[in-house]
């Protein structure tokens, strides 16, 4: 018998600190599968900012940098600009990317920074125990929206892929989910495409991954998957929001040339 499925090599063989049923582990794995398939572990530098995945440096076997809350795109910019031949990715949660780091997010995209952003949207702050995130759905109960998120008080959720796809520097924006095997396959394809974009120098790529947080949602893992399908996907439609075939810098004439 031949092994048809096993852990990717670039995912370090240790138990993770994630809660049972948390889909971080799935995204970690498919990201590492892409790194393995492209053979780029030795040329990849990952940046993980504050959030549940801040300790992902213990799981990804490529070189890793821990960043402050919201600052991963800036850190990644510093890495990529000085190491343009390396693959650089960030792995950010929704509070990180769409609240405290919104400025960094928008500007890394509009600069067309040739990096990959993996954006985990689970509509909640996981690490701090379940507070309202910028992506928390209307009426969703969290620790800081105990009566449900009231948009009149707390505003509306941010749709990140839609927002970033309006920017010229964004080469690729796709929203995927990890609630089922077919969707996981799609998610992996999207991540692969984002890295291929980086390889081809096409510009900024983001893959938004709808994910679960069973613990802070107060749901059993399978019920959390059902919530993702029934409540999140209708609000955050899956699909490709932007996909340029060539570089975002094609036909741009710069003063430095």
């Amino acid at each position, binding site marked *: 018998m031949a*092994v*048809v499925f096993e852990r990717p090599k670039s995912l370090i063989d240790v138990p993770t600190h994630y809660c*049972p049923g948390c*889909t971080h582990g*799935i995204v970690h*794995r498919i990201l590492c599968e892409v790194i393995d398939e492209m053979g780029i572990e030795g040329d990849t530098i990952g940046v993980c900012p504050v959030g549940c995945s801040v300790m992902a440096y213990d799981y990804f076997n490529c070189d890793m940098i821990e960043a402050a809350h919201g600052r991963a795109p800036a850190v990644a910019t510093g890495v990529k600009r000085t190491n343009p031949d390396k693959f650089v990715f960030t792995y950010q949660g929704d509070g990180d990317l769409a609240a405290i780091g919104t400025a960094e997010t928008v500007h890394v995209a509009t600069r067309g920074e040739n990096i990959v952003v993996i954006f985990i949207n689970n509509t909640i702050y996981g690490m701090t125990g379940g507070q309202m995130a910028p992506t928390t759905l209307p009426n969703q109960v969290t620790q800081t929206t105990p009566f449900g998120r009231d948009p009149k008080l707390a505003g509306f959720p941010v749709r990140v892929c839609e927002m970033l796809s309006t920017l010229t520097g964004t080469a690729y924006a796709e929203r995927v989910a990890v609630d089922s*095997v077919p969707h996981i396959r799609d998610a992996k394809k999207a991540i692969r495409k984002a890295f291929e974009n980086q390889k081809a120098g096409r510009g900024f790529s983001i893959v938004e991954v709808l994910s679960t947080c069973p613990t802070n949602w107060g749901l059993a893992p399978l019920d959390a998957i059902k919530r993702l399908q029934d409540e999140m996907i209708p609000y955050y439609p899956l699909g490709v929001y932007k996909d340029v075939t060539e570089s975002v810098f094609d036909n741009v004439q710069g003063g430095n040339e």
Partner: protein
Amino acid sequence: MAKMTVITERCKGCGLCTAACPKKIVALQKEKRNKKGYFYAECTDQSACIGCAMCAMMCPDCAITVEK
């Protein structure tokens, strides 16, 4: 002829694999727990396994290997 193997001590008993299996032959233990106290997943009928690896793809903890 296919085989799925759960790395019992890595399993957190979340059960995502049980719903992913098209043959409905993956289930959580009801009595035995691993060292961390989780009711771990196991294959209830290896002879029915088709090696599709959907259980493994759904597993957040890389606790399943599949051979075919």
